[in-house]
């Protein structure tokens, strides 16, 4: 039996639930993880990633020395370098000087619009604040975004339009107070496992009635009273038909509508056409299920909606989210305990990165860059001459890569993101990446994106630095350093401050935006002076447990429930809706719908989990297909298949399972061997600029075993 040398309390680096961890260490080796049972977030429970999936930090392929490419890269001839032999190890001074020289050279020559940066929802609030500050204050560009664009952008935009705030309205643990709740576009049991436990408890022990609206028979259906298996992309008709029934049966909350909302009449008129019969004809969902769901949600005293990326990742993602918001406004299921509109955020710090201004249209705290007063405020705070900050909206994640070219974006700084796995239509993304003049990657590994870089800056992992993450229910929690940074790696905030000072000197900027922080606590305090929701957050207040934003002052206890009295925009606004089909319908050539997503054991582009023991549990990509479709195609279980869309083709095994509904196949996007995003379509929602990951047309045909990249990577699992 061993005793730990020490234990360190910190926050999980995987999903937005933000579980509290206790790392058990022997020397610099984390050998175990437990969680305090007193934790308000996860009550001592963890999932496989949180409890066992941290070993990527010790992986032999971790890059811990600054690196520069041996062969100079040029636009159009840029290649990926995964092999250490293709890189020259250099000192930090050399790497940072080179980075500053090249970025300043491009900025001087081509101006602010040539600069762009991907911040990171995996990094801390402080890291993200500093990186957006660096690009805004020094390079005067708003081309600042991160993977929220590929994730909940549709929800964020819709919530801003309808209520004026973009986060979960209530606390995840409140699900036990729901009488009824809708889970849609969310495979909660695999992607927010700890919130799923609370949902299961709500059903099993508190009598809550669960309605799942999802094209897949996800695990939560096992706990549901109703499952509405809609055709992917038909969310607006289904939820609008629910609104239609609520209106017809007078289950709506007249007092709430009168006192707290606007635009009801136009909305109600637009719902007239969404009869259950009409919705059934589009979505395939039995009209009776729609009526029952309307009665269950509309008739409940406390009811909430939880959704994830099935809603926003669509060419009409904003409309999808609005159809949910309309339901909450219609019934008044918002602003009270056990109610609410709850977009479950994916990454550990996607809420925080968004709050910290890693967004092209907003300064920290969702303050629009195109409003003069905001620009003036940040010019003062960052010691910038009047008129110095860019007033134009910047480019979004997907737009940044599309804008690469001689007159467009020339350089890209990537901190801890992997667009070469996570962007839609990767063949197109690859072409754009190759046209860049200069790429800096700040990461732990040579992944598909950082392998394209000219300079690699080795960052410290979450266990090697101090900071804060903001979880899905707006809880700012501490991340604590458990071990020394591996090799020469350094914390992101330190690298960025060092780089900023060099860029500032080269640009000869007359005054400084300030980069001489001794500790991330000072960065968060600075952010708090600029972001009212973070004004009262100080590190010393986060010692025992986190604080839920908004925290307007240092005495404020935090805000578990939003919109109790009013909405940030005043009245909640109903939006009229029409049905718009997905961009790519199926046809004879591409007869199946592909929808993409994640599995329990892996995380996004796989940089972390595929370098972990987690990969032993789930070592290969597997497509899910319904037995009816498999029969038509003559497929056997776990047979190799080729999946082809208009944009690409991959080979992987097919599992025949009732989890897939007829006509719809599912592929997780974690696996470079069969990257689902080679197939997906890069059409964007016009308002939120989020790609349509959840619907594209594909063809499936049998393939040979030897066409698999690694036919031996198999693990028998009982749960799949």
């Amino acid at each position: 039996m061993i005793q730990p040398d020490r234990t360190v309390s910190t926050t999980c680096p995987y999903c937005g639930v933000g579980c509290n961890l206790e790392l058990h260490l022997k020397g610099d080796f984390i050998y175990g993880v437990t969680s305090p049972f007193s934790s308000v977030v996860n009550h001592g429970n963890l999932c496989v990633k949180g409890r066992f999936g941290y070993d990527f930090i010790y992986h032999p392929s971790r890059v811990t020395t600054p690196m520069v490419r041996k062969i100079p890269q040029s636009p159009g001839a840029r290649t990926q370098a995964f092999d250490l032999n293709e890189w020259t190890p250099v000192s930090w001074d050399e790497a940072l000087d080179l980075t500053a020289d090249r970025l300043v050279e491009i900025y001087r020559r081509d101006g602010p619009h040539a600069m762009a940066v991907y911040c990171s929802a995996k990094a801390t609030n402080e890291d993200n604040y500093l990186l957006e500050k660096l690009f805004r204050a020094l390079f005067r560009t708003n081309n600042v975004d991160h993977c929220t664009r590929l994730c909940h952008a549709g929800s964020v935009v819709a919530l801003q339009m309808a209520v004026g705030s973009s986060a979960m309205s209530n606390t995840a643990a409140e699900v036990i107070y729901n009488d009824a709740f809708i889970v849609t576009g969310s495979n909660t049991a695999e992607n927010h496992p700890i919130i799923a436990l609370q949902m299961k408890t709500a059903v099993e022990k508190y009598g809550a009635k669960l309605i799942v609206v999802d094209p897949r028979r996800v695990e939560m259906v096992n706990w549901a009273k109703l499952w509405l298996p809609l055709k992917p992309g038909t969310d607006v008709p289904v939820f609008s038909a629910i609104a239609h029934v609520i209106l017809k049966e007078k289950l709506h909350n007249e007092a709430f509508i009168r006192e707290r909302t606007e635009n009801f009449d136009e909305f109600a008129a637009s719902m007239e056409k969404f009869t259950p019969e009409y919705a059934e004809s589009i979505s395939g969902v039995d009209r009776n299920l729609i009526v029952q769901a309307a009665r269950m949600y509309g008739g409940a005293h406390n009811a909430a909606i939880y959704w994830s990326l099935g809603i926003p990742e669509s060419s009409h993602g904003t409309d999808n989210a609005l159809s949910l918001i309309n339901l909450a406004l219609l019934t008044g299921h918002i602003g009270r305990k056990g109610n609410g509109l709850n977009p479950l955020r994916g990454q550990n710090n996607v809420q925080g990165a968004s709050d910290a201004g890693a967004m092209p249209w907003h300064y920290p705290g969702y303050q629009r860059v195109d409003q003069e007063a905001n620009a003036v405020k940040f010019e003062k705070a960052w010691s910038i001459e009047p008129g110095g900050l860019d007033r134009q909206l910047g480019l979004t994640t997907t737009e940044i890569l599309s804008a690469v070219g001689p007159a467009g974006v020339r350089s890209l700084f990537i901190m801890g993101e992997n667009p070469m796995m996570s962007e839609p239509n990767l063949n197109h993304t690859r072409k754009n990446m190759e046209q860049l003049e200069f790429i800096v990657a700040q990461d732990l590994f040579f992944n598909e994106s950082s392998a394209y870089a000219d300079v690699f800056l080795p960052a410290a992992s979450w266990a090697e630095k101090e900071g804060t993450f903001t979880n899905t229910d707006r809880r700012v929690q501490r991340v604590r350093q458990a071990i020394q940074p591996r090799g020469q790696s350094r914390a992101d905030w330190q690298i960025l401050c060092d780089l900023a000072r060099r860029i500032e000197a080269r640009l000869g900027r007359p005054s400084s935006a300030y980069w001489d922080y001794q500790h991330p606590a000072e960065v968060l305090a600075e952010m708090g002076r600029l972001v009212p929701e973070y004004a009262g957050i100080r590190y010393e207040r986060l010692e025992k447990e986190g604080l839920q934003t908004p925290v307007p002052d240092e005495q404020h206890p935090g805000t578990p429930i939003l919109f109790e009295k009013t909405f940030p925009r005043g009245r909640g606004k109903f939006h009229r809706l029409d049905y718009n089909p997905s961009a790519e319908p199926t046809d004879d050539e591409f007869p199946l719908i592909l929808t993409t997503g994640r599995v329990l054991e892996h995380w996004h582009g796989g940089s972390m989990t595929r370098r972990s023991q987690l990969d032993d549990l789930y070592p290969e990509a597997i497509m899910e297909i319904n037995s009816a479709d498999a029969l038509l195609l003559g497929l056997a279980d776990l047979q190799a298949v080729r999946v082809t869309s208009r944009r690409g083709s991959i080979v992987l095994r097919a599992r025949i399972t009732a989890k897939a509904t007829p006509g719809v196949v599912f592929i997780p996007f974690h696996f470079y061997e069969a990257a689902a995003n080679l197939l997906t379509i890069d059409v964007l929602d016009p308002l939120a600029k989020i790609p349509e990951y959840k619907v594209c047309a594909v063809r499936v045909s049998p393939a040979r075993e030897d066409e698999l990249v690694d036919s031996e990577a198999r693990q028998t699992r009982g749960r799949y």
Partner: protein
Amino acid sequence: MPEPLTITINDQTITVQPGGTILKAAAEVGISIPTICFHDFCTANALCRICVVEVEGARTLAPACVTQVAEGMKIHTQTDRVRRARRSILEMLNASVDLSDAPEIQEMMHEYGANPDRFPGAATHKQPVIDDNPMYVRDYSKCILCWRCVQVCAKDAQYTYAINFEGRGFETRIGTFFDHPLPETSCVFCGQCVGVCPTGALKPKRQWLLEQGLSADEIVQTTRSERRRKFRGTLRGESPSVPGETQTKVSGGQP
């Protein structure tokens, strides 16, 4: 509000709300009753009986973790009878189970004067360590059958039902259906079971390897070579595979 109850614990008279257990009532006045199978976040089942107390008028000793307080109850937590029962429980546990990873139980043995050699030659639960998955090992030689792991796998947390009791009497043990390896069960490897195990029977694999004397570097290496061994070997079909050339790949860069 229901009427509060008046009870005495160790001659101290207190008022408590009805519906609570003797264990909680005692804790409220600072009287500690030893527990082994009890866990604040698991359903109590009074399996180990170490928390037994004497209730005046009751024929048998009462397990404090599940016995509810009642009006006028007179409770004694440290009588000779109670201490003798606890001592015997500890001696029997110690005779059949490897308690080397359970310092709290060892401390209790000391406190209650338990004789570690009271049952020489007793049957034991000694059995090989089960190492069937990459995440954690199961060393049921150390299992005292507290039921916590089964409960957190079921309705106390995870609703996954991958493990349960099997066998009867002394042969009772924790297992999977048909003794399938864990990856082939419904197990999701959340490790809630590892988190509540009081005796080190369930343990993260890395911790176990560290205890076997491997260094941190060796552990990283071991798990990688195991990966190769296990997942290159267990295949259906013999066909040696060659990576397809027609495959569109993002890269070949990952390990």
